């Protein structure tokens, strides 16, 4: 029998996921502008692969395929993973990543709503550990690249590994990321000030990538205004990352990069607004979200500066995912009538 309430808001998981994808579009446009159209190929490939895997997993689990496929969660995972790895990576890289994201991290854990870990970040972590070489060959900004890859060239490279004849080799189209550069150059005892004079760096972050980071932030603000996310996790993440990097920067500016460099590079903005805010695998209480976000910010910094990987967002998110249930348990807000009367 039906019981009250008999009305509901016109909203759905699909609408939420569509809005998340909408929020990513400005950054994707900038991506194409600065790094060429390869990202469009990897996004398309990721979308098709993710939907196929999702459908297969739903069929195996005996669930209705259409409503679950339409929820859009697989597409969001696909896009986030595609945006987290090099756009010119070989086709199988994203396929392997999505297998771990969709099949292992999501469906083996019980499907939508039951995954402990952020699926896209599981995919990313597996890839960076297993295939570090293709995972660090990022497309050069068009302003620096020795050769420009058009749509067909990019497809030919992604699917067949064949570069256009006019290019001299992989180095002509790819480069290390700003964080990677920072890391290697610091080991060579160069100062941060010297390093950031290198061409890969832009005004505050990386050449081109700083604009994309800004647009991720813009998309995040849109999601906040559209009430897709609350402010807690991004603000806590960004504040914690800025604070900890600021403290180290003040202690030794020659060896520690500026807070704005940390915020504008790597996965910081994508992570703060689109990945750490994944509700399924994150903390849910207001205080819990602050702790969760701050934890990711701090861990990201620690992994970047003293860890073995140039960026730390993915591992920071996964580590905090583990802590989310515990954080929630200890940050339950006071229920009405249990607060005592202060006024």
């Amino acid at each position: 029998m039906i019981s009250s309430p008999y009305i509901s808001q016109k909203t759905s998981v699909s609408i939420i996921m569509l809005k998340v994808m909408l929020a990513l579009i400005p950054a994707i446009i900038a991506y194409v502008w600065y790094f060429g159209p390869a990202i469009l190929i990897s996004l398309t490939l990721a979308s098709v692969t993710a939907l196929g895997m999702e459908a297969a997993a739903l069929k195996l689990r005996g669930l209705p395929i259409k409503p679950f496929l339409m929820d859009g969660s697989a597409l969001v995972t696909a896009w986030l993973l595609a945006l987290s790895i090099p756009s010119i990576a070989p086709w199988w890289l994203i396929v392997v990543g999505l297998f771990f994201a969709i099949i292992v991290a999501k469906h083996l854990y019980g499907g939508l709503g039951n995954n402990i870990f952020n699926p896209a970040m599981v995919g990313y972590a597996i890839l960076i550990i297993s295939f570090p070489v293709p995972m660090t060959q990022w497309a050069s900004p068009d302003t620096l690249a020795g050769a420009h890859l058009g749509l067909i060239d990019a497809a030919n490279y992604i699917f067949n590994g064949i570069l256009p004849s006019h290019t001299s080799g992989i180095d002509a189209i790819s480069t290390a990321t700003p964080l990677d550069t920072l890391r290697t150059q610091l080991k060579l005892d160069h100062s941060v000030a010297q390093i950031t004079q290198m061409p890969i760096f832009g005004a505050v972050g990386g050449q081109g990538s700083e604009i994309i980071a800004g647009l991720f932030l813009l998309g995040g603000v849109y999601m906040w205004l559209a009430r897709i996310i609350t402010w807690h996790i991004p603000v806590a993440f960004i504040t914690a990352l800025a604070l900890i990097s600021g403290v180290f920067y003040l202690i030794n500016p020659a060896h520690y990069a500026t807070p704005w460099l940390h915020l504008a590079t790597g996965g910081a903005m994508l992570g703060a607004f689109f990945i750490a805010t994944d509700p399924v695998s994150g903390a849910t209480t207001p205080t819990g979200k602050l702790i969760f976000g701050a934890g990711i910010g701090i861990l990201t910094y620690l992994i970047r500066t003293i860890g073995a990987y140039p960026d730390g967002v993915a591992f920071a998110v996964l580590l905090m995912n583990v802590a989310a249930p515990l954080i929630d348990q200890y940050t339950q807000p006071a229920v009405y009538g249990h607060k005592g009367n202060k006024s």
Partner: protein
Amino acid sequence: MEMEISDSQFESRTMSRTLYQFNGGVHPVEHKDVSTQLAIAIAPIPQMLIVPVRQHIGQPSKPCVSVGQRVLKGQIIAHAENYISIATHAPTSGIVSAIALHALPHPSGLSDTCITIASDGKDEWTERTPIDYRNLNASALRNRLRDMGIAGLGGAVFPSFIKLNPGVPQKVQTLLLNGGECEPWISCDDMTMRERAAGILSGAEIMRFMLRAETVVVGIEDNKPAAIAAMQLAATQCHFPVEIVVIPTLYPSGGAKQMIKVITGKEVPSGGRSTDVGVATFNVGTAYAIDRAIHHGEPMISRVLTVTGNVHQPRNFEVLIGTPMQNVINLTQGHPDSVSGYIMGGPMMGIDLHSVDVPVVKATNCILVKSDKLFPPPPLAMPCIRCTRCADACPADLQPQELYWFAKSNNFDKAQKYQLFDCIECGCCSYVCPSHIPLVQYYRYAKSEIAATQNEQKSADHARDRHETRLARIEREKKERAEKLAQKAVAKPATTTADDAATLAKKAAIQAAIARAATSTTEPS
């Protein structure tokens, strides 16, 4: 504290008050204006009135009329039984045609005892005795309200006289009249305030006297400007200070706890009552009913209710208690779409009616006729993605996504730890859920399972107690018997002689009888 209003008297009416916020809340489409276009109409007297003896929270009233008896309008037909109970009255004059089980508007769909009265069409009143409340003390007034069948019309139908007994003097500083009416579609309180503002405040005067409340506040949502104006006008003509507080329209601000929070900033403690924070809350319709009961001698035999939704002419009616709902629905001139069901109450907290062959009761504030167009069947429920829109919407500050998880996995201990029983079932969580999960149904399930377990536990405890008592009794009896035997054994020598004497006497009697028999047998032969 909030004392600033108490002595400043009439200026206080225009004083702006700091309002507070409760967490969350939702803004469903109101649909209220459709039923406020026409004035309250008096519904005609039906041929048959089916009056349940239990329309209130507490003990059912006890019938005191018999089948075939003629009753007058306003006559008591069932007396209040025990403390938490009120009397029931004949809504019109006529003949009692049955005292039997009848289906009631209740989610269980169960039947209960109803007194059926066949109207004689005369609508002849019993003797009414208007009273000047100042001539009675609070206790006598309470008895009067009990006999007048006054229960809260806001939905809970709790006997009002009990709430008007503050126990400790000065416990209630504020009498809060609730004109929030936050549920969509319903407009009966709105219309009552528009048309009967003076009566409402006249009732408030009595309640204020009974509670010895310092302040009288009427809380009204800002989507009812006409009602606000009417109440403000009535307040200026009233000889005690009344403050009309306009609060933002936000469901469920008409919930007593939420309104108290909005107006006073205080939270009613969990498991406590509003009087714990010095506030007594009554629905505006109840205040009007109290005015009718005391100043006019009219018991609660009718109420104003909204008939709306899938009907051609939505409207408010003053309806006699016991009128079959179908009769009231018939007054709204048919349905634009095919009827898919009926709700008693609003779309957020109302109950689904199995049929409208049930009487209007004191709790019936609205009959909402459904169509698939107005109330489409809910879409397929998707898994919870822990987006916490429910927590953002919850006016009780709960974490509905956690409660759902615990209820679904039958983890009732955890659900209680997360304060399941502070859930007021307002439906905000289900309303905002993007996965369309019927969350409230899960909480109702968990609550009833916990209640069932506690009942089982109670009866198991009871059975164990009885068993243990029985064992103890058997043991005690055994011991007593043994003691008795032991006593007997000690007392034996004395009793033996007595026994012997008795035996001797018996033997002698037998001998005598034999001798008598011998002589008698010889005689006739």
